[in-house]
């Protein structure tokens, strides 16, 4: 996608920097936007995603919080009730659970239980996923746990341009958005055109066109799927790669359109396969495309086991061969 925007106004930047620039723009344009979280101020976050923001916007808008995730989200709810638009950072995926209560019982339901009187424009940023050799609780993919909750929106960009624009759109949304950042892609560079008109936040995008099979993924797995499509092309197979971008809502129309063309679908995510987003996609696409499918929808993802120690994560995470194996099995029907 990046090539599309290679205009005079586009800049090459890492995905983490794209989020940083997007937050900066939001802080500049809307005085109600706040950035808050553990170590987001002076340090600029453990991944430096908020680097320099406190220096430029002050401690009142870029807020180092006490080390208490429920407190971060709970106070963000209160700030939103007061008219602010907080963007909160949860330092790592595995640390979101103290805040899960506030997110599920309060943040997600506030608009509905107020009969629409109250809006909750809160973005919860969560660096997620594995592949960086981290210790326990630093490599998980809990997106399904949030997608299952009505009232939340769940998105995950795969590249720098989307990271920039999807963050803009998430902040502008009047609904709470859980923004999953693919931490192993933080340092991947891509072209970002800060003036291009973005697509809709919850629309999937075709990252590579193909005719024989659709690979559907989001966040960190899109790059892997593009690599798989390259490898398959060498064997004469034409794979379409669909970057879903949004897990809730899921863009079933785009998946359906692709599957009606390719007649085969493999869903790839790092999260465990069991009750993962792939299960929901498989069920709905089977229902929508029953007479188009030449093979059952297959899923590639993590196992039903705790995320393993770093020395085992390559075996646990979907890799090129696991994706291609699923492609072969789907094509064999």
């Amino acid at each position: 996608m990046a090539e599309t925007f290679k205009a005079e106004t586009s800049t090459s930047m890492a995905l983490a920097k794209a989020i940083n620039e997007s937050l900066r723009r939001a802080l500049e344009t809307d005085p109600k936007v706040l950035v808050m979280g553990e170590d987001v101020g002076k340090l600029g976050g453990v991944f430096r995603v908020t680097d320099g923001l406190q220096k430029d916007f002050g401690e009142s808008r870029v807020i180092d919080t006490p080390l208490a995730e429920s407190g971060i989200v709970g106070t963000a709810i209160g700030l939103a009730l007061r008219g602010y638009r907080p963007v909160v950072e949860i330092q790592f995926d595995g640390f979101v659970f103290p805040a899960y209560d506030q997110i599920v019982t309060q943040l997600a339901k506030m608009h509905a239980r107020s009969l629409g009187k109250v809006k909750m424009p809160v973005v919860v940023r969560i660096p997620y996923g594995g592949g960086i050799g981290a210790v326990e609780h630093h490599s998980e993919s809990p997106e399904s746990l949030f997608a299952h909750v009505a009232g939340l929106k769940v998105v995950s960009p795969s590249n720098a341009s989307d990271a920039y624009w999807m963050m803009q759109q998430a902040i502008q949304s009047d609904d709470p958005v859980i923004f999953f950042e693919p931490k192993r892609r933080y340092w991947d560079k891509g072209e970002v055109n800060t003036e291009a008109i973005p697509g809709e936040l919850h629309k999937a995008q075709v990252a590579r066109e193909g005719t024989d099979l659709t690979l559907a993924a989001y966040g960190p797995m899109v790059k892997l799927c593009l690599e798989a499509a390259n490898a398959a092309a060498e064997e004469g197979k034409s794979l379409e790669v669909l970057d879903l971008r949004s897990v809730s809502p899921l863009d079933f129309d785009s998946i359906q359109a692709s599957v009606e063309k390719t007649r085969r679908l493999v869903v790839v995510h790092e999260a465990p396969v069991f009750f993962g987003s792939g299960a929901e996609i498989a069920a709905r696409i089977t229902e929508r495309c029953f007479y188009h499918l030449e093979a059952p929808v297959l899923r590639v993802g993590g196992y039903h086991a705790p995320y393993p120690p770093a020395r085992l994560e390559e075996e646990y995470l979907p890799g090129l061969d696991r994706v291609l194996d699923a492609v072969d099995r789907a094509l064999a029907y």
Partner: protein
Amino acid sequence: MTVESTAARKPRRSAGTKSTAGKRTTARNAPGTDPELVQLLTPEGQRVKNAEYDKYVAGVTPEELRGLYRDMVLTRRFDAEATSLQRQGELGLWASLLGQEAAQIGSGRALRDDDYVFPTYREHGVAWCRGVDPTNLLGMFRGVNNGGWDPNGNNFHLYTIVIGSQTLHATGYAMGIAKDGADSAVIAYFGDGASSQGDVAESFTFSAVYNAPVVFFCQNNQWAISEPTERQTRVPLYQRAQGFGFPGVRVDGNDVLACLAVTRWALERARNGEGPTLVEAYTYRMGAHTTSDDPTKYRADEEREAWEAKDPILRLRRHLETSNHTDDGFFAELEDESEALGRRVREAVRAMPDPDHFAIFENVYADGHALVDEERAQFAAYQASFADEGGN
């Protein structure tokens, strides 16, 4: 751990010698005997001097005292009507505030219009002070909505059922007030049970480090469903504040004047940029936890009887009468007004329609969601299929 073995606790006065196996019969440090307790009116209705807090109620006129009395009486009448409506099957559940009228009216009447309230699900008296129509409180208990009022209409947030969650919302809201440079304040209500929740501790931490203008108003009504306060804490709750770096005070929660004074003091601190305050209103839940509860399983009648002698409404009535601030006409008119309120609430609840079926899909999202749209359409088609069969 037994109650007797708990260290750093004052000896208790026994309310009775009759022992009922498995049930509490001990009246805890009774108001009037506890030097830590701020009290301006004794249970007998005697005004007692307090060097620190008298000034906060020095200007309270007899008319205002009658107003506080009226608020408490009408709140109790509304509460009793709601309990009856539950018994009649009109409400699915009711959480009675019986016994806590002084704590709620005293604190509620200390607030300014621009202050913001974060209630639990039992703050019917505070809602009354904020001007929320009592019938609006009943929607969620009847099961027609999950919150029937606009929080910003009266600066009274929706009832929060998850214990303690609202203390963080209150803190965040107060942080916003400080950012705005306003001099409004926030009051967060919670109970002795909630004091064990992590969210309450985190709200103390956040409000303290950001110096947020929030008053934490804990109604210690002695019981968290069946668990006594001893199961929640080893120190008096108001002392918790000290560890977080802000003041805490215990007030006689059955003394409306003392609750008014102490809350005014705490709000003044908030407005002056002095940060949070913890107020522990020491009171008693005279009824069940909710209409689904059976207190006879875990507490003895003697305890309730001891607290009935300290009834918040009775005590102000005694004070009004001995001070010659009222005449018989006042009480008679109030009784008529009470009955009229009861009738109005009863009729309003019975007339409350069930929501439209499609309300399930309303306001799930502010900006819409494709799946909700799809499921709404499926639901509509499903419902319409019955009409096609001529059933409707």
